[in-house]
Structure formats: structure tokens, C-alpha cells
């Protein structure tokens, strides 16, 4: 008989037995009980079961569970910490938001910067300082005249084998570019052809640009700078570097100035609320 009816039927019968069934369902079930003897039988079996359970003995407790004064004094009532869930939640939220803010800064900042900011200043300077590079590149490497800026005692020289603009040594390995401005100490690669001193050094017409007089494109060109030109050139290069660095830092700072404050504030909130929640939790579970 048990399998004849669904669990829904049994649930209805059980609720009907306790008077916990709503009116439309109750009437429908009562109609079914009149029509279906099997269902009525199932209902009565539940009724019998309930009656048996109702006759289960009520046992008196073997002792009193009241507390004595001594017991009560030993038992310290636990203080209620109503704010514990809120503090725990706010600490967790603040931590998550802080991590998100840090990620935002990491993701957004490089994209916000213009492409030129990523170019190293030394490369920009090299490009600016070599207006003749196009013309040099137009020629075949064999036809390019070598330009050497001469007369820079104590500043190294060297660099690439095509053009040496020296504040120091250029990258001796950068042979393909041919126009690297070096900033560090350089290894001067002596070239017997380029180191021949000219009796009448050609003064640089334009300074600080590294424009040398173009020859016929086949010969050797030696340039000798005056001390003032070199000084002004160096100053221009240093100014340019400073400007580029300051521009870059300004852009980074201005890309998301509020993010720093948000991160800082969230960190403070997370620490304070987390600390309070932890201390409350410890007191609660003492």
C-alpha cells in the first residue's frame, strides 16, 4: 500500500492529520478519502502511529539542572558582540576592494601612458640628435661617411662605428643603429682611420645638434667641438632627460591620484575592523 501513493500524498495525509492543511487542499483530500479506501487505510495507519507515539512515556528528568550561586559565579556569561559579523564582513570587503584597487592601478596605469613615455630617453635623444640619420640610411653602409666628434677630452667617445656622439661611451654592440648616444663609460674602440687628427678641425655649425658638414659622402669627416658647444650640448641632453623623466612621473601620478588614497583608506579600514573583529572573536571563544 505504501508504494501505491506518492510522497506528496503521504505529506498531505500527515499534514491533514495535524490539521495543518489549507482549505482547498483539505476539501480535495477529504473527497479523495471518501472515494479511495486505500487512501483512507493509509491515513488511519498514520493516525494509529501518531497515537502510539503520543503514548510514549514522558520521563521525569533524573535530577534538577538548576545552577547554584557558586556555579553561576564560575560561569562567566558570554558578552554579546552584535558588531562582530558586521566588522568581519567589512574587514573582508575592504581587503577585497583594496586588492581590486591595486590591480586596477597595475592594469590601468601603463595603458594610460602615451606610447612616447615608454621610449627610453636615451633613444629619443639619439633620434633627435641624429638628423642626418635618414640621409645616412639612404646610403649603403659602404658609402656612409664616418663622422667623429673630436676634442672631447675626458668624456670618452667611441660608441658605434658609424657615428659617435659622446657623453660617454655608447653601446659598442649597437652596430646596426649607428646612432646611439652613450651615457656610461665607454670602451673606446680605436680606429686608426678615424683618429687621424686634422690640422684644421671643422667647427660644428649647429650646436647642440650633431650636424656635421656633409662631404661628398665618401670621405672621412672629423668633427671637433669647442668646449662651449660641448657644454651646451651636454646641458641640452641633460635637460631633455630631466624633462622626460619628470613628464613620465607626472603622467603616472596624474593617471590615478585617487587610487593611492583609496588603497590607503581601504587598508586602514581592513586593519582596524579586522583587528576589532579578531579581538571580539577571541573574547567570545575564550
Amino acid at each position, binding site marked *: 500500500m505504501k508504494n501505491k501513493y506518492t510522497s506528496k500524498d503521504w505529506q498531505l495525509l*500527515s499534514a491533514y492529520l495535524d490539521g495543518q492543511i489549507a482549505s482547498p487542499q483539505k476539501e480535495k483530500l477529504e473527497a479523495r478519502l471518501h472515494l479511495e479506501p486505500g487512501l483512507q487505510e493509509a491515513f488511519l495507519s498514520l493516525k494509529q502511529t501518531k497515537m502510539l*507515539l503520543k503514548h510514549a512515556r514522558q520521563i521525569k528528568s533524573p535530577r534538577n539542572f538548576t545552577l547554584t550561586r557558586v556555579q*553561576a559565579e564560575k560561569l*562567566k556569561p558570554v558578552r*554579546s558582540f552584535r558588531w562582530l559579523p558586521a566588522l568581519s564582513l567589512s574587514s573582508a570587503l575592504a581587503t577585497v576592494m583594496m586588492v581590486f584597487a591595486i590591480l586596477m592601478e597595475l592594469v590601468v596605469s601603463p595603458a594610460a601612458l602615451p606610447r612616447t613615455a615608454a621610449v627610453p630617453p636615451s633613444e629619443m635623444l639619439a633620434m633627435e640628435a641624429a638628423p642626418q640619420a635618414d640621409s645616412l640610411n639612404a646610403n649603403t653602409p659602404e658609402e656612409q661617411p664616418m663622422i667623429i666628434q673630436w676634442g672631447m677630452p675626458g668624456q670618452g667617445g667611441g660608441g658605434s662605428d658609424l657615428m659617435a656622439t659622446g657623453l660617454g661611451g655608447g653601446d659598442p654592440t649597437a652596430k646596426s643603429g649607428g646612432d646611439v648616444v652613450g651615457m656610461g663609460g665607454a670602451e673606446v674602440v680605436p680606429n686608426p682611420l678615424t683618429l687621424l687628427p686634422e690640422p684644421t678641425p671643422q667647427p660644428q655649425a649647429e650646436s647642440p645638434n650633431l650636424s656635421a658638414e656633409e662631404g661628398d659622402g665618401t670621405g672621412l669627416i672629423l668633427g671637433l667641438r669647442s668646449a662651449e658647444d660641448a657644454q651646451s650640448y651636454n646641458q641640452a641632453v641633460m635637460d631633455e632627460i630631466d624633462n622626460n623623466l619628470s613628464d613620465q612621473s607626472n603622467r603616472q601620478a596624474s593617471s590615478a591620484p585617487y587610487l593611492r588614497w583609496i588603497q590607503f583608506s581601504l587598508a586602514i579600514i581592513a586593519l582596524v575592523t579586522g583587528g576589532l573583529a579578531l579581538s571580539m572573536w577571541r573574547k567570545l571563544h575564550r
Partner: protein
Amino acid sequence: MMDEIALALSAQQGDLDAFNRLVLEFQDLAFNIAFRMLGDSDEAADASQSAFISAYNHLSSYRGGSFKSWVLRIVTNTCYDELRKKKRRPTTPLEPILEDADDGIESPQWLKDDQPSPEGMLESSELEEAINDCLQRMKRDFRMMVIMVDIQGMDYQEVADSTGVPLGTIKSRLARARSKLRDCLQYFRELLPHNFRLDGEGNQ
């Protein structure tokens, strides 16, 4: 009729006598629920004592309303904790098991020829043992519903307040539990007085 809310609020303010009056009011109910849940008198007494100590410790979390429901929830949770402990650390009794004490559901003592009379059956210890045995075979959530509704006579809302279980879940659990008990207590159902029998045959 005792004003349980007023007493609970007094107890909250540190009135131990008020708390003890509440204990005296509900200790039998708490012990009976614990006994039916755990199936052992000593364990039930320990669980009841633990529950009332826990209630005293956490009086500050009582927010008004029915103290009975509040304290029964603590009793319920204490029983569940005890059942979990028992499951983790199963114990064996120290005293030897007597052969004739083996009255499991497969070969119960009440299946012997010397059957109790129907009149005395409801008072019999066999019925008591059978009920306990059937209850212990059930899942604890179903067991709790039957104990509260059918044995202790609580209504659905009281059970919901005491256990935190929704009303719909209570209905379905109770129906399944009753269905299992109906099969388990079939023998006793057949011995019930005639007005509780189905018909002349009384069998399914």
C-alpha cells in the same frame, strides 16, 4: 502561568533565581527530547545540563520572544553535537551484553508468544523500547520532528522556532518519519483497541 519572557529578561539582568525557575519549567521537556534523541538516560542528562549551562552563558543573545523555543534550540544543537561526537568516537559498553537482552527490531522481545494484552499494551515497556528502537534507526533530522510533534505535542510553528527548520521542510520530514514509523510499529498498531483499527482485517 509563568511569564517566561519576564523571567528571561530578569535572568538576563543577572537574576539567578529567575533563570532557575525557567530551568525547572523546561528541564523535563529538555530531558525528554534529549533522551529520545540520544537513546540513553545518562547522556540525555549530561546533554540537558550542558544545554542549560550554555543557555546561562549566552543569555545576552536572547532577544525576547519565546524562551521555550530559544532554550529548545540550544538543547537541539547540544543533542546534534553529542550525536556527532558519538559518531566520531563510537563507544562499547563495559558491562557484558546479556543474550536475552538482545531485542533488536529483527527479533524483538515483543514478538514472543506471551503477547501483552491490547489494554496493557500502551503502558508496556515493550512499546517504549520499540519506539526508542525505531527512533534510533531514523535519521536524526526526521527523529527530531517526530519527537517534537508526536511525542512532545509541539505544533509546527514551535518546531520551526526551536530548530530553525522551515515549515515546509518540517511537513515533509514529518511525513517521511511517520511513514517509516508506521512500518516499524506495525505489530503494535495491530494490537491497538478496535476503534483505532482500520477494519475487521486490520491488515494491509
